[in-house]
Every structure is written in structure tokens, then in C-alpha cells.
């Protein structure tokens, strides 16, 4: 019973990739849930931006919290923000997931046809996210 909402946020606070992972069946998942996750993720950006200058790490760990939701973040060298809103502790898994996603993101951004800050619509990227999500977050 855990849900993860993963989002990559661009420089203008614009989401460029969103993905949800959940062990809960689809019927139980509510649209509200996703919406709230978006709001929480957005609100956490202030803290991400504060923390990113305070640490040399890319992993920002769990930086924010709202009710039962935790917000973990990762910041890339180009200041792209990876955020996961989750409702259970899984520091190790999230850390690995972030690292793998960073790798994937870097590869994707190497694509000459991809413009930074624009939504990612690659099926390959989608597939990789799916794999890593299942491997590190839901296992």
C-alpha cells in the first residue's frame, strides 16, 4: 500500500514528466490524489530551491512533508528538479530510483531533438521509468 508520484520539474516550475507508481489498484486511486500530489510537489519547490544551495549532494533526501506525504527531491547539474511525493519511507529505493532516472534523463537530454524544459514524450523514457519504478519503488 504505497503510492509514489514522480515528477520532473523544469526551470519555469513546469512539469516536464509525470508518473505515478502505486501498489493500489487503479479503481481505488483517485484523481484527487494525483492532484494533491501535484500541489504538494509544487509547494515543495521552495524548499528544494533552498536546499540545493546548502548541500553539495544531488540527493536532497526527504525535504518536505504534508500530512502523510513526504517529498523527496533530487537535483541535476542543470538544475532540473526530480521530485517524488510518497507516503511511506523508502530512502534507499528512492535514492536508487533517482540515480537511475538521472542517468536516463541525461541520455534523453543528449538527444539533439530534445529541447530542455519541454515535456518528455519518449516511449523509451516512459518504459525505463516504468522499469525503475517497479524495481526500486514498488518492490
Amino acid at each position, binding site marked *: 500500500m504505497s503510492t509514489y508520484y514522480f515528477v520532473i520539474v523544469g526551470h519555469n516550475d513546469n512539469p516536464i514528466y509525470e508518473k505515478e507508481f502505486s501498489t493500489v489498484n487503479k479503481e481505488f486511486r483517485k484523481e484527487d490524489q494525483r492532484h494533491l500530489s501535484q500541489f*504538494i510537489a509544487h*509547494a515543495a519547490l521552495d*524548499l528544494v530551491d*533552498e536546499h540545493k544551495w546548502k548541500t553539495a549532494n544531488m540527493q536532497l533526501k526527504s525535504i518536505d512533508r504534508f500530512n502523510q506525504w513526504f517529498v523527496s527531491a533530487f537535483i541535476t547539474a542543470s538544475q532540473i528538479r526530480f521530485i517524488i511525493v510518497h507516503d511511506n519511507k523508502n530512502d534507499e529505493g528512492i535514492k536508487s530510483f533517482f540515480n537511475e532516472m538521472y542517468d536516463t534523463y541525461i541520455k534523453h537530454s543528449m538527444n539533439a531533438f530534445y529541447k530542455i524544459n519541454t515535456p518528455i514524450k519518449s516511449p523509451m523514457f516512459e518504459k525505463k521509468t516504468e522499469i525503475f519504478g517497479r524495481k526500486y519503488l514498488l518492490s
Partner: protein
Amino acid sequence: MRATVGLMLSHGSVEPVMSRPDYEQNALHHSSLLVLLRGVGPSRARILQRAFEKVRRVNSIKVNDSSGNTRTIWVRFIHEHPVEHNDWGDFQTHRRLLGLVTIGKFDNQPELNELCRLHESLKVRYGSTLYESRAIFFGPDEPNGLETIGEEKSSTPRRLQDDYTTPSNFKSQAFFYREQDSCADLESRIGDFVSALFWVLESRRLERSREKAEKVSLLLAPFEKRDFVGLDMESRNNRKRCVGRVMKNLADLSLQAGLVDDALSLYHNANETLRTVGDSLWVGATEEGLCAASAMLLYPQMREIETLHRNSSLQEAGTSPLRHTPEKWRASDATKKVTTAPESTNGEVTVQQQQQQQRLTSNSSSCSSVSSLVTTANNSSASDTPTTSSTTTSSTSTISAAPLGGSQRNGELPGNILKAEEITNYYRKAIINYSKYRHAATIETEAALKASRICIEQNRPLDVAMFLQNILYINLSMSEPERVKRFEIITDLYQQIGYQRKAAFFQRLAALKHVQQGSQAPDWHQSYRLMLGSFTGYLLCLDPLEVVENAAGWPALQIDLVQSLITAARRLGHSALATRHMTFLLQTQWDNMSPTEQSEMAIQLQNLSAQCEGSPVPLVLENGTVIPPANLTDLPYCLDFQVKDLPPHLRPQRIKVAKADSGPFLFTPIHFNSVDRRDKKKDKNKIAFLWVQNDLSEVCVRLRNPLPFELTVTDMRLLTNGVVFESLPQTIVLQPHVPTYVPLHGTPIETGQLDLQGYSTHTLGVKSNCRLKHMRGRSFPPNYLVEVIPALPRIAVKTSLPQTATFSNMNSADIVVTSASLTLYNGESSSCTITITNESAILPLEYLEVNINSNVEQELQRKIFRIDEEALQAKLPVPPQGTIDFVVEVYAEADFVCPQPPSSVGHSSAPAAGDYSLMSGSGHASLPSRVGSPQHRRHEPQTSSFRSTMSGGQPSLAALSLQPEPSSIGSQFSQHIEAQVRLKYSGGEALTAGYCRQCAVSFNLELLPSAQITSWDVLPAEIASQFYLVLDISNLTAQEMSLNYTDNKNILIEAKESCRVPIPVDRCSLEQVCAARAAEVAENLERELCFRTQLLSFNDALGKLCSEHIAERVKINWLLTGTDIKGMASLRGIVLSQSMVDLTAVSPLQWSISFQDTPVQPHSELVCTVGQRALLSIQLTNDSMQPLKNLVLSIKFYQDYLNGMENYNLETRVAFSGPNRIAIPILEKQEQTQHTCSVIFFTPGRFKAGIECTTNPQQQQQQQQQKKPTSARFCPSATNVVEGQLEMFSSSYDEQQAHVWKFIPPIEVTVVEQ
């Protein structure tokens, strides 16, 4: 007590069991005396506002205590105070309400009584803690007249309290003021009041400090009462607890009484004591106290912020300049380092620096508030001269607006003060301690808020976030409004540290809480306000243009937010706002929505706007927020915007004027008047064409409807700037996804520059101004500029002829407004009346220029069309609605003569052939001296009569016949001529400005062939002054034609038949020939000199002359019998061969011939007898202007059988004595030559004598000399020519042509038997 309850109810505050958190509290409030400042009686807040301000301004006083030290006493005025908060007064003394000030307004005694009662009831309510109270009463203005006021004021001002008396049970001290009183002494009175409070407090403090440690009672927090029931109070632990708590209480009092140093040490001690007994709650309290005391010394400016904040909030909520100061601090880390300087010895410096820093910020950031200025002024004076504060103050107390604890700050900071970074830790510890007690949740919440405010001051946003975060997890049972309030305060604090996104999150939460389901009284107004407030956090702003421009933020959240906002606005009943926000949503988030969402939103907008139509005007909310207009610029989506020129026939043109002389050079690099023209070129949006005032103009817009349903756009108009423009509304229904062209019309009312900015629409119930500059993603210029010129008249044109069915394909056919068609036979004349009506209502038609363009050559065109320009100009001007007409004369000009083939074969062969015919002697009955003929004949039955008896396969000249060339078809088949009568017209102001319009009438002229001259010849007439022009005329019409060829001769020709007519014509006079020769010589000379081009031969000129001569004299009128169609065929363009020319022109040789010594008369009968010698004498005179050279005179006798046969073989019948061929080398001007010979006829009969004189070209003679003279081309007699004279002749071009001059008519001799 009843009154209290009544008051409580009237204020609508039902107090919860637990005290409400005081969200506004900060650490420095620990040191303030709490005073309730309350307006009583009927609400007249506005009137009393000034009094409130004055009271509130007294936030601190300086008091000299009994030992002579100056103490700064702070006051905190609050508006409301739950009574049970007083219960926490033992726990933290600053929670206790010490003073009460009421302000009220009365008009009469009963009202005053009521005010007094309210004051008293408040006193009763807070009686347990209240030290002192004051009532401020504002009475009515002096009832007397104005003049008496002046008198009385000067003498003895009438006091209010003399007129009105307080009830007997009113025990408080009251101040009376008139309503308009300046209340000059109010501040000092409040100062006195505060000092009174201080002295009571001081006495309490001293009392407490003198208590014996063994005797102190246990101080309790309200909820602790039950916990200690039955406990051994005398135990060692409890004793310690008692002492510790009392010590803490004393510290609180000391802090309030301005003894910060004492308070600090007492807090430390109490903290030590209480920690040992594990009294967590009170340990927390001491820790908080320590923080408060330290903060008081470290951050005195926090009070100012509060003051400023409060003041500025009166002016404009939410935009306090200090709100953004944390951002500034974030920018500079310098302050932060100073603040967190670890060395306590540096404390003084730190504080001073900080103070300066603060001064800077307050100076720079807020000049609006008067009190802040006062504050900073005091601040600087206090800090610069610390001693002055004590010397200048009176012994009792001084009043200052907001003095700082100057003496303390400039002295050494106490050693036990908490360092800046320790404060956070202590607060953290305190909060942990509080959190152990469920009932201390309020205290905990407040502590967290105080801590975060301190952290804001210290510029530690992460700590602020941490404390604020913590607040959410404090399990505090509170009412929903309280919860909302909590979110709002969190929002505010986040905003202060610049965490806009966090702030927006909580703001939105608060907004949702206001209206959440199950809420008794959903406050949509608050919800709306908060939603709007959170816009910045989501990177939205109210102006759609800016949002679209930035294109930042999280679209899903933005859409959600705007939708909530729309809901709130709708629930508020403010449908204009709802419509506006919906429009905003569609406009800004269109690209971020799926097609279904787009259509859903569009339908929603339609529903919303049904209640209130959206229009592009700013909306102003009650709180002054301006909602800028939102326009649906891309609904429908504009693909194309084209400014259209006027229709071609209405298009204004420049009237061409003769170019001003700009010097002797054709080209000059200096542009005299083209500077502005160049500038215009740079103007990309400048339209090249012109619009005309009062003329309907058009812009074509291509629109696409992006919605899946039909979109109705009504009232679509052009948006313009500049000159006045009347737009015509347009309504269209756009099918989904189909680009549609929409014409938008309008009329410029003035002249000048028109600025087309876009168009306005009314769709989905929303009016929008769609400006080109706001249409993104298309390369539109921001506007289009069109020049509007003064009004031009308009005309309607009619013709008297039927219109054509087909349109002409001439160029500029687009200006044609009407057409006329006409069919004419060649040579026929007709006319067409063109009627022009001036259609304009006011403008006269003052200028009209007519010219004709056609697909034929100018010269021919001039012959076909004729307009009387002068008569037309005389009819101008045409008044408005007036009419003029003019006539176009049309003549069907055509070539009636078959054109000559281009080959010049005939030229060279003509003389030779002529010689042959002479030699062969075969004659023709009707054409006795046929020596030349046009080379071009048609195969017709008639021509067969020109049979030749010539042998040797030579083409017969007479029958020489060539197939008509394709190019000559034109005259035999119908010919189409297209012409345009172009009318340029203008009038009024536009004429002075040099503009006109052009329209055209298209003429379609069909020319049918009528008569055609297929062949022609020239024959000598009976008299020498005339010749016969023999024409073969064919009737090419389908009707019988009556041909009138001389004055009285008519002939009928059947359709498609032809006939031959002889026409006697006067010969071309010698003078004309001479003139032509002179002109030719001159021309040749010129040509030779200048151009060295090919020289004209005289014969060309002469031929032309003769051709014109004939054309002039011979007119053939024809009439189609049975109709009134008649015409005239001219012989213009007839081509004459050399021999024809010789016949046409008068011969240069004058013949005088005598036979038997009698001069021969024409047609005279000459008789001679057989065998008798007859003398033939021929005398030649050169009448021409030139000498004639190389002449050969020949005499030939022949017999004409009158059947076409002529017999020249008369060797057996006639004999000559003397030569019958005589060469005359030169015959000078006017020279005569005589030749006489005798003839003997051997047989009787009729004989004819052909006498002629020929010239031979010189070149042939030359050839003759070089070649054998056997060539058929040479004249045998040429051997007679003297060779030496060759050079002489070479100069005369005339001599190059062979001429034959005959004596006409031939002599006829009848020979009779003897």
C-alpha cells in the same frame, strides 16, 4: 455579569474551552503590557479612527524608576482578548490583560450612559487582572453658532463634562473630547495611563521579589489544577517547583517592567531549578522567556516592523513594502553573518550594525508611513547620543512615538544573553517541552510562530519552514475559522521569507477550508480573495497577456486554481468575474488543455456569460484589485489578416502631371522629395495602397474555429486607431476546423492615417478585442497603417449600345464597369452615346479625362474611334447626381485593297517582262498597252480573261496570281477589335490632392468584310490628263450590294460576286511629283549624312504619292440594297507598280506628234494611201525639273485585230525609213528633241502606232558592258548608250528605275488604196 454575556454575544465570539492561539504574537510581546483598546457603542470606527491611531502610537514610554534608572515600558494594544487567556497569566504574565481603554462617541446623555455601561461591563469582565482603565468619550460638537465658538474659546472653553455627566456607578477615569477636537493631550494622557499601569506592575514585581522562598505558593497553568490535587506540596521537589515557577513569574514581570537583565538571569535560574524537577511545561516557558528577553535585546527592530505593518496595512493590505524585505536579506548574506556572529563580545557591534541595517531598510522601504520616519529619527538620535534620552526626559515619564531601548543597547549586552543561533535551539527545546502537554497546544503553536518570526528576522528560511511545518502537526482542536486563520498566518509567514509556492499552497488550502463541504457558512468571499492571492505562487497573474508571455508554471495546477476561482466567483454571485476568469482560463491555458477540455470550458464559458456578458474592460474589486480584461484572441483562430484594396474601378490613382523640371540631368543621385518615400519603405506594416474617405473598405480575415461545434461570432468589427472609422458589424457561423474567409467592412470618416489594430469579436458571450500584436505564433505586424485620402466622386456609366456577352481579355480589364458591342461592315460608320451619372451626393465631378485603348495600332485606332474632347470638357463640372453624355464616333476602318505580298519578285521582273510583251507584240483588246500590273492577283473567273499569248512558260504578268497570304485574311473575314474607353475622373478635395479614379467602358467591335478590291490596274484614258483605274471589286457580304463608284455610276454586285469597274481619275500633277522628288532628295541627303542607312528610292516616294493621290480621289460608296447599311471603301494603301506610277503621274515628256505634217489629235482619224510615204514627226520636250537620261524612243506599228490579238509582224506591210529606235542620251530640262521618220504602208488597212519612250537603269547598262548582250533581261537598244556618260548618271537615283512613257492614245492610221 449579564452585561458581559450580552457583550460577548454581541461580538459573536463563543469562547472555546481552550484558549485561541494569538497568531499575531511575537517574542517581543513577552515584554509588553497588554491593554485592551476597544471601540464601544454604535460602530463609528471611521470617526474614531484618528483617536485609535493616537492611542496606538503610544507604544512605549520611558519611566524613571525609584532608583533613578530609566526603564522602557512597552504596551501592546489589542482589540480582543478572550477572558480565559487571563488564566494563563500566571504561566506567562504577558497574557494577562492589564489595562482597558474604550473609545466611544455619544450625541446625548443616554448614549453616554450606554458607553459608560459598556466600559464598566468590560471592566467587570476582565476585573481579575485589570490594573487600570480609561474611557475616551467623543461628544457632539459645540451646539452654539460659529461666532460664539470663537468668543467662548477665547474666554472660557465650554467643557463637555459640564454638559454631560457620567452615571454614578461609572468609576473610571474619562476623557471628554469634542468630535472635531484635535485631542492634543490624548497621547500624554495615555502615557500617564501606561505609567500608572507600570507602577502597579512594578509594585507587583517588588512584592513578588520580596516573597520568602519557603512561603511561595505553587503557580499553575490552568489545566494543571487537577494534576496537583492530593500531592504533597511540601516535598522537596515541589518546593523547588514552587520556587522555580515563582522565579519564572518574577522574570516575566521583570521583563515587562523593563528590567531585561534581571529577567535574563531569573529565567536562567528558573530554568535550572525547574529542569531538575522535570517540570517540562515550565521549563519550556523559561526557555521561551529566555528567547524573548534575548530577542528583545537583539532584534528591537521587530517592534518597528509591527508598527509599520499595522500602519501600512491601513493604506493597502497585502502590499506592505516590508513584506519583501526578507527577499532582500536573502540576497545579501552579509547581514546573516553579522547576525550569527558567535562572539558575545562582538555583541554590541553586531547590534549596532544590525540597527543600522534596519535603519536602512526602513528608510528605503517605507517612506509612506509617518510613524516610521519618526521612529527612525528617534532611533538615530537615541543611538548616537545615548545620554540625551535620560537627560531630556522628565522625572516621571516621557512619551515617544517608538523609542528604542537606547540605553541598554548601547551599553554592554548582558553576558547571559542567548546568542542568535541559540534562540532557535531554545525555541525548539521549548516547543518539545510544550508538546508533551496536550493542553499546551496553543502555547506550543504560539511559540512556533514566535520562533519562526525570530527566524525570519535572522534570515533562516529553512528554520522558518521547519517551525511552520511543525505547527501543522500540533494537535490542536480548534474551530474551522481558527484553522483557516492558521493557514493564512502560515501563508503570510511563508510569503515573508519569499516562499511563494509554499505560501500559495497554504493560501489555497485556506481558501478551500473557507468553503469546504459541511461548512455552516461557507465564506466564498474570503475564499475568492485567497485564491486570487495565491496567483503569484503559481506564476500566474491577472493579465492574460503577461501569462501568455511568460508561459511558466505548472499548467495543471494553474487550471485547477482558475477553475476554483471561477467557482468562487460564481458562488459569490459575481458573474462578471466568473466570466472574466473563464475567459482568462481559455485564453491562457488553451494549449495546455485537451480538445475535450477545451470544448467543455468553452461551453462553460457560454453558460457563464449567459448570466453576465464578458466585455474587455477592467473590473475593479471591492478591495481595489483591478482585474484586467481578458480577450479571446485565438477563438476563433485568426490565420490571415489581409487589408484589401478598393475595387479596381474605384481605386484612387495619382493624376499624372507633367514632371517638374529637376535640372538638365535625366538621372540624379540627389533625391529631392523621396526622403519620406524611403522611410515608408522601411515601414513594413504600411499598406501600399490607399483608402478613400466615405468609401466602404474591406479587410479579409481567415478564421478557423478550433472547437468541435459550430461557433457563432457576432458583432465582428475592425479595431482601429487614428482617423475616425465606422466599422460595420459582421456575424458569422464558423464550422469546426474549417478555415473561413470573413470580410470585415468599414468606412473611414476622416482623412489621414488609419491604424488597423485587429478586430473585435463577440463569441461565447464574451466580447473580445483581438489585436494583431497579441496574436502569437503568427507573423503579424502589430498593426497596419492605411492612408485615407479625401472623398472622391463616383460615377455610373451607361452606353447606348447593348452589352457584350463575353469579357474582354485586355489588360486592366478589371476597371471595366460596363461594355458595348457593335458590329459594322468595313467602311460603315456608327456612334455610341456614353452617359455618365455622378452618383455622389455632395461631390461635383470636376475632372474627366477620356482616352481609348485598344488592341489595334494607335493610328488605326484614331481612325476608328473619335471623341469630341472639347465638347466633353465644356460639359464639366457635373453636379452631384447630375448626368452628362458624350458620343464616341466609330468608323469601321479596314483595308479594302488586298495587301501586297512581301516578296519583291515583281520588281525585278517587271521591266523585263514588259520588254518581252513589247517584243512579242501580243496585245489585249481591252488593255491595249498593258505593260505593268500589280504582282498580286486573285484566282477568279474574271482574271482568266487576262490571257496571255506569251510563250516560253514565262508567268504572264496579267495573269500573275498568287494565293492570298494568311496575313491578308483579315480583310476578308470578320475582324474583332477590343477597345476600352477609359474615364479618369475626380472632384472635390481629392482633385486638389491630385487623386482620381479610373473606370472603363469596354468596346467590342466586330468588323465584317464588305467590299474588297481584289485587283487593280491603271490604264491610259482617252485624254492625257486622266487615266482609268480599273478595279476588281468583290462583294464579301451575303447581300446584294449597290456600288457607287463615280458621281453617277452605280453597279449592283450579287453576294459573293465580284465585278470590274473602271474609274476615270485625274493624273497626278507634275508639281506634286516635283515636290515629292525634292522632299525625297532632301531626305536622302539627310539620311546619307546622318545615318548611312539604306537610301529610299525616288520611286517609293513617287509610288506613295500616287497611291495617296488615288486614295484621295477615289471613294467607293456602297449600300447593301434592302437595308440602310452603307459605307465607304477607300483605296488607301493601294500599291502601284512602276508602270502604273508612270501612268498615274503626268508624264515628264511632252509629246507633240505630227503625221503628214498635221499634228495628231487624240482619237483623230489619220488617213494615208498605200505606197505613199508618210512623214511621222515626233517632238519630245522634257517638262520635268531634271534632265532625263538614257532615253530610248521607239516606234512600233501593229495591227489590232480587236479580238485580243495584236500583230506586230508587219514586215511585209509597213516599212520605215530611218530608225524606229532612237537613243537619246540626255534630255536636259525644257530641252526639246525632234525625230522624224517616214513610213510607207504596203497594204491598206488599219494600223496603229505605239510610240513610247523608255529609260533603262544604269546598272543594267553596266552589266551589259561586262556580259554578253544576249541576256534576255537586256534591252537590245542599250548598246547605243555612250559609255562615257556613265559617271554622269550615277548620281541620279531616278535613273535606276526603268520608266515607260507612252504617247496616249496610240495613233491610228487608216491606209486606203490609191
